[in-house]
């Protein structure tokens, strides 16, 4: 039932391949698996779907191998997990020598004749999972009931009445009034009869009924006596019922006024406090009337004082444990197990969350790192903590590396050559800095000699068009037409408020094409990701105008919201697009980066969710505050304690 089963090294050499059903080669789906799962650190869940196939994989971190099995998506094979584990164990044991001693040459030269073992394991796995025949119902002879004798099933006086009383209680409660009188009369008569016919085993129904009734009545009488007693103390209590008196309830405002009427409002009676102007005013050296800046202590000093104290007691404890760990590492090759890594991973996960990485992403990242490190043999002189930290750092750098080229200028040049404008659209939620960063990017483009048309497609927010007009004026003042060969570098295309944004964008692009502008920057209105009609409108704008670059503007202050925003934006763009391959978000602009010191986790959250690069980073509100992302610096800030 399997389509294929491959075993290959992490370096890329296929060691053994089994092609089950005659179908397409295994290379393309496995490559897709590697690219989307292993390289993007989504390794927590070990199955992956690619077109019509489901792929399950297992990593061997000790010998750097990957085991992948592929089967049709519509089949649900239950034995696959067990099969992978068995194959892994057997393959590793069989070729242990090649891996350990000969290294890469062993992999290259070795012939891995695994087919027979694999077929055997496959057969075993298939048999163990064969569907068992549905359980046959037991025949009557086999059941326990047939073994009971007739005698034990007959009702006798002793046992049955108890059950009947319970039933009767519910029904008889209504009739007790009428029957209470009749019952005692019949009771003595009824009593005699059953005692006389004690020999008879079956009583008539009526007799049983009567007997039950008298028993019930007796019980009721006893209960009645008790209940007749209880109302009496209640009645006595009732007579003595008095109105409840609250402590302050009846008193009027006068009683409640505790203020000293003599001092109320009179200034002389107020005691003269020791008024010390110094304590009230604080620092006497201030200039009157001046507002000072926020004093900023260097973080390092503060951190050192804080860290020194807790580290002293922990270092003593850690010293002994660390030494034993080190000795173990020295003596033998220690392979990492899940239990070893779990405490460290927990701490790293909390650390990441403290650095503003979205919670679910931190969890997935730690899972993926754990999968990558399980079974790995640590070198000498390395502790578990350092290995895990190293792996996590590599994973983070890997995530932040762009998967595609990030060179806007190059693409603008290409578009320039084809005589069409390069269209960039900015989208995002409210207040993240779209218009500000649009102005910064247009300043950067002008500095590099490209003319820019700003399309004011934010027709909703009050003052949006005026804001862009102010920016245009300023930019033209900074780069007057005289210094660029008489060409106005920036122009604003606006149609006022309340109009359709997609229409304005389309007109702006054709205007740019006619006038020969190099770049069109389209500014859209901020919208919440849950607002369905607005998301539809945005998707329509992007689908209709087909911009070259769709940039999502997100602020670095956002925490777990980043995941929700990006997922919903992407989903909206994908859902409302008519094309086969919908235009999704192409890049991210991370703004307000100067407001976070080293809590840079939002960068990780955003790139992880979309796997698109961060194209620009905004670090302030002036035109020069535009940077590009430096993956190593961000990861260093993230991993810093």
């Amino acid at each position, binding site marked *: 039932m399997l389509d294929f089963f*491959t075993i*290959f*090294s*992490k*370096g*890329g*050499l*296929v060691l053994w*391949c089994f092609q089950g059903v005659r179908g397409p080669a295994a*290379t393309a789906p*496995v*490559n897709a698996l*590697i*690219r989307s799962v*292993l*390289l*993007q650190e989504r390794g927590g869940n070990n199955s992956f779907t690619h077109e019509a196939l489901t792929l399950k994989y297992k990593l061997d971190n000790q010998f*750097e191998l*990957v085991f992948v099995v592929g089967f049709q998506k519509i089949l649900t094979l239950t034995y696959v997990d067990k099969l992978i584990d068995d194959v892994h164990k057997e393959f590793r044991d069989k070729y242990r020598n090649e891996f350990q001693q000969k*290294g*890469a*040459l062993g*992999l*290259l*030269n070795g012939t891995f004749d695994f087919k027979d073992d694999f077929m055997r394991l496959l057969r075993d796995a298939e048999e163990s999972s064969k569907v068992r025949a549905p359980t046959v119902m037991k025949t009557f002879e086999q059941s326990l009931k047939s073994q009971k004798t007739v005698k034990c099933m007959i009702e006798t006086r002793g046992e049955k009445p108890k059950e009947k009383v319970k039933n009767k209680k519910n029904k008889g409660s209504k009739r007790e009034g009428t029957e209470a009188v009749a019952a005692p009369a019949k009771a003595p008569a009824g009593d005699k009869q059953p005692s006389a016919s004690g020999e008879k085993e079956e009583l008539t129904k009526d007799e049983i009924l009567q007997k039950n009734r008298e028993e019930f009545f007796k019980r009721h009488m006893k209960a009645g006596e008790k209940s007749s007693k209880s109302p009496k103390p209640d009645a006595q209590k009732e007579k003595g019922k008095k109105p409840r008196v609250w402590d302050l309830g009846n008193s009027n405002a006068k009683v409640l006024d505790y203020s000293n009427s003599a001092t109320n409002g009179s200034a002389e009676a107020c005691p003269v406090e020791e008024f010390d102007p110094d304590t009230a005013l604080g620092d006497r050296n201030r200039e009157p009337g001046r507002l000072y800046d926020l004093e900023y202590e260097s973080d390092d000093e503060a951190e050192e004082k804080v860290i020194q104290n807790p580290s002293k007691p922990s270092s003593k404890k850690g010293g002994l444990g660390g030494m034993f760990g080190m000795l173990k590492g020295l003596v033998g090759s220690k392979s990492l197990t899940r239990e070893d890594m779990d405490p460290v991973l927990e701490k790293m996960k909390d650390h990441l969350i403290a650095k503003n990485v979205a919670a679910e992403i931190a969890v997935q990242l730690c899972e993926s790192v754990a999968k990558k490190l399980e079974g790995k043999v640590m070198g000498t002189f390395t502790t578990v903590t350092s290995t895990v930290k190293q792996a996590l750092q*590599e994973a983070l*750098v*890997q*995530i932040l*590396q*762009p*998967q*595609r*080229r990030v*060179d806007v*200028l*190059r693409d603008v*040049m290409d578009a320039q050559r084809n005589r069409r404008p390069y269209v960039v659209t900015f989208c995002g939620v409210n207040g993240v800095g779209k218009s500000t960063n649009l102005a910064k990017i247009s300043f*950067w483009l002008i*500095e*590099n000699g490209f003319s820019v048309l700003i399309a004011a497609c934010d027709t909703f927010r009050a003052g949006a068009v005026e804001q862009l007009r102010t920016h245009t004026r300023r930019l033209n003042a900074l780069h007057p037409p005289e210094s660029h060969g008489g060409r106005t570098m920036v122009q604003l295309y606006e149609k006022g408020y309340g109009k359709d944004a997609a229409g304005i964008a389309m007109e702006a692009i054709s205007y740019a094409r006619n006038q020969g502008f190099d770049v069109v920057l389209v500014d859209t209105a901020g919208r919440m990701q849950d607002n369905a009609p607005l998301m539809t409108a945005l998707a329509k704008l992007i689908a209709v105008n087909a911009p070259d670059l769709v940039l999502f503007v997100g602020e670095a202050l956002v925490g777990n919201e980043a995941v929700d925003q990006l997922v919903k934006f992407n989903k909206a763009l994908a859902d409302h697009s008519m094309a086969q391959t919908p235009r999704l978000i192409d890049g991210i602009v991370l703004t307000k*980066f100067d407001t976070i010191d080293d809590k840079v986790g939002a960068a990780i959250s955003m790139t992880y969710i979309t796997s698109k690069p961060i194209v*620009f*980073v905004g*670090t302030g509100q002036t035109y020069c505050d*535009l*940077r*590009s*992302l*430096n993956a190593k*610096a*961000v990861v260093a800030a993230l991993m810093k304690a």
Partner: protein
Amino acid sequence: MTAGLEPHLAVLRGELGASGPALLSVLLALIVVVVTIVIWRCVQGRRSGRRAVLLLGLCDAGKTLLFARLLTGKYRDTQTSITDTSAVYRANNDKSTNVTLIDLPGHESLRLQFLERFKAAARAIVFVVDSVAFQREVKDVAEFLYQILIDSTVLKNAPALLIACNKQDVTMAKSAKLIQQQLEKELNTLRVTRSAAPSSLDGSVTGVPAQLGKKGKEFDFSQLPMKVEFVECSARGSKGEEGDADFEGLEKWLAKIA
């Protein structure tokens, strides 16, 4: 010489004997430690000499297959590499020297990390280009090549660079000359756009971004501090999986620089 040392040794021995055996053992231990450190440094020094040849290139360029062919001559199926593989290669020149061939992953998220790790040990770089998909990928190829060439360690060491135009067995493959011209044009443009990109977050790490080639003139591979050669090869070989690979040019170059 020993005559001169004798009285000194005698004095030393006398002093050592006087202060007791404990001091002697401590001194012995110190000497052993010093000797070990010296030996260790020597061994490391010999090991860290630049003896590595790096196989770099985009994803699916054919680096891992080329690696396998060079080492064993046999055809192997390959998948996308996630880690590096290294092995010792015996060059077929007169001296029959050894170099370490290192095959690095070409995937975008990994390539820079591995380049960082191995660039210091690089004696030569083989940049593998997929000649069939070159037309489509020229910008990505040029960007990766630019990143390698602009690196400060690479500029300082100036390892020999060979651009191997792979997959020549396919009819649509571009020739080495065409690839050279296109790369020069692309790198020329990249010089301008990359240096104009917004500066990095923590102020630029490298003070002044290095300039590739000569200013004012069109970029040419001859302007680089290292020797650059172009060669055509086919890892798969014209006869497919059974036959040999077609890469005499590559082998000759390896023999030359080894």
